[in-house]
Structures are given as C-alpha cells and as structure tokens.
C-alpha cells in the first residue's frame, strides 16, 4: 500500500505492469546482489557465529550445571547412606547394651531376693521356735496357777487342805477337755 510520493524520476519504460518491465531488471538485480551479498556476509561472518555461540555457551553451561548437580546429588546420597548405616549401628549397639544391662540387673535382683528370702525364712523359723517355747512355758504357768487356785478354793470351801496330787490330776483332766 505504498504511494510513491518520494522525490525522484520515474524509471523510463514502455509502460505495462511495473514488475514485468524487463528494462528495470538490470538495476534490480545489481542492487539485490549487493544488498543480499552484504546481508549474507554479515550473517555468515558475524550474526550466525555470534548467536550460535551464545546458544552453545548456554547449552554447555546448563549441561555442566546439570552434571555438577548430579555429582552433588550422588554425594548427598552417599552421605545419607553412610548416615543411615551409622544410625543402624548405633541402634544395634544401644539395643545390645540395654539387653546386657537388663540381664545384669535381673540377675542382681534375683540374687538379692534369694538372700532376703533365705534370711526371712530363717527369721521366721527362729520366731516360730520362740513362740512355741513361750507358749509351752505359758501353758506350764497356767497349770501351776490353776493347781494353786484350785487348792486355795478347796481350802476355803471345804476348810481342809486338799491333797496336792489329787488337785493336780483334776486340773490336768480339766485342761485336757
């Protein structure tokens, strides 16, 4: 949609559609060759190598960064693995120590319990013996008191002293009942 308002003289021609005027082709071809030649020179010498270089630099930078990231990830993975290994070892160690300690404590407690039980059993039998003795002597005292009391009762009631052997026999019979 161009209007040729620009100053200049129209190319002399025999008329007809402008694009089909053969007499203009020489000038068109000459200046096209110069203009396009210049563009091709700039393109092959400056533009294409420069942009190609920029893109290549970026690609190689990205590749190297990715490689670095890869190695770092591998390192991190190795560190994680070793950390987990040491953690498992520590855990196993701790469990062994706990089991050992538990066994030791149980054994100690058992031993203490046994000595305590033995001591208690001994104490118990001693106490039982003492009780038995005390009971026997107490029972003996009861007989003599009963005999004396019976004699005193008989003397007061009957007014005569009772024969000791008879009273003893009677008390023994009463105690047995």
């Amino acid at each position, binding site marked *: 949609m161009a209007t040729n308002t620009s100053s200049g003289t129209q190319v002399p021609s025999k008329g007809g559609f402008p*694009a089909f005027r053969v007499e203009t082709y020489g000038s068109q071809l000459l200046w096209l060759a110069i203009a396009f030649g210049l563009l091709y020179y700039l393109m092959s010498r400056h533009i294409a190598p420069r942009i190609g270089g920029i893109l290549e630099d970026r690609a190689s930078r990205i590749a190297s960064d990715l490689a670095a990231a890869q190695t770092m990830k591998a390192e991190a993975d190795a560190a994680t693995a070793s950390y987990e290994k040491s953690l498992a070892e520590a855990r196993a160690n701790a469990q062994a120590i706990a089991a050992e300690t538990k066994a030791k404590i149980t054994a100690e407690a058992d031993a203490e319990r046994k000595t305590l039980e033995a001591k208690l059993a001994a104490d118990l039998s001693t106490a039982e013996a003492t009780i038995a003795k005390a009971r026997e002597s107490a029972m003996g005292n009861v007989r003599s008191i009963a005999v004396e009391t019976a004699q005193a009762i008989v003397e007061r009631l009957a007014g005569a002293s009772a024969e000791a052997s008879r009273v003893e026999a009677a008390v023994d019979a009463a105690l047995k009942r």
Partner: protein
Amino acid sequence: MADPIKQFELVHLVPLKIGGADFGFTNSSLHMFIAVGVTAAFLLLSTSGRRLVPTRMQSMAELAYEFVAGTVRQTTGKEGMKFFPLVFSLFMFVLFGNLIGMIPGAFTVTSHIIVTAALAMLVITTVIVYGIMKHGTHWFALFAPSGLPKAILPVIVVIEVISFLSRPISLSLRLFGNMTAGHIALKVFAGFVTAMAGAGVLGMMGATLPVLMITALTALELLVAVLQAYVFTILTCIYLNDALHPGHH
C-alpha cells in the same frame, strides 16, 4: 480513484548507467538496504551483550535463529547447517522485505518478480552446484528414483526433470503473487474509501465498510507476510535436502 498499480512503480533516486544499460539506484534498491539494515541491526545490536540470560531483544533474535535452525535441522539434517547462513539470510530478507512493505508509503521489494526469481534461482543454483560438487554424477539419480521398472523410467525421468525445473518458478511466483495481490487488494479498498467519502454524508457513512475491510485485510497481509517468508524458507530447506541426500526422495 488512485491507480492501485502505482505503488509498484520504480523511481530513480540516483540514476546510474553502465554501458547504456540502466543500473540506477531506485526506491526498490533503497528498501532492499533498509531490509538488510533492519535485519542486521536487530540481530547484531540485540546480541551485542552476549548475555547468558538474554534480554528481551536478544531472546527474540535467539528465537528467530532457533526457529530457522530448527527448520534447517529438521528438513536437511545436521549436515544442512552449512547452508544455515544462506537460509537465515533468505528468511530475514524476505520477512523484512514483506513486513517493511506493510508500512504505508514503503515499497515492497518482494512484489517484483525479478527479485523473488533471483532469490529462487540462488537457491536452485546452490542445490545444483553443491549437489554436483558433493555427489558428482550420482546427484542425477535424483531424477531417476531407484526400484522402478525400466519401462516407465523414461516417463518418470521427464516428470522429475519438469518438477525440478518448475521449483524455482513456483518458489518465485508464490511470493511475488501473494505480495502483489495483497497490496493491490489493499489499494483497491483504500480507493473505495476515498471515492465513497467524496460522495456526501451517506457516502462517508458507507465508507466505513471498506475501512473495516482494509483493517481486516491488513491483519491478513501481516500474516501472509510472515507466512510467505516461512514458506520460502521451508521450501528452500526441502530443495537443499535434495543437494545433500539425492537418494532419499
């Protein structure tokens, strides 16, 4: 109504005669240099920083580069990249030749058949010269596909030769025709506007219709300008592929 053909007229800016023949510097020549200048300025200035993280303009230059490089790689393979400066030059020259022509008052370089024909002949000459240089006489196997019965071979060879020879013609006519037709259509509708607007109030109201039409056509022409540059480029790549791999056809 203005003559829709006048926009294609060549005007001498600097007359020059060599041996009686006319080699004057015309408005067309000027616009060729503008296209080259805009291309070079766009691609060189935007990339002068060579930034790892590109600026917007550098990103656009890289996009253009990657777009053409991708087309070349896809159609001709990696070895076709030796033609990359040629293909990229053709693409940018045709693209800016077309786009600059869309500016009102500017001249459309690609609306002249001799310009598009010269570019097409450059491509075909490259194909023939490089093909014969690289493959010698084997390159002519392009015209005789293998695995054909001998009886129909002469017919096929004739068809292949004609199809090969018609390539530069179709390549140049397609671009020339698209540009010329589009610009004539725009000019015709613009003529309607002035003609109707001169016919009173009713005519002025009616003139809005061709204005709308011009708006739509301008959008279409912008699309055509870019599309034809791409078509020219991809066909160039396909033809160059024949120079590189005459057997795979």
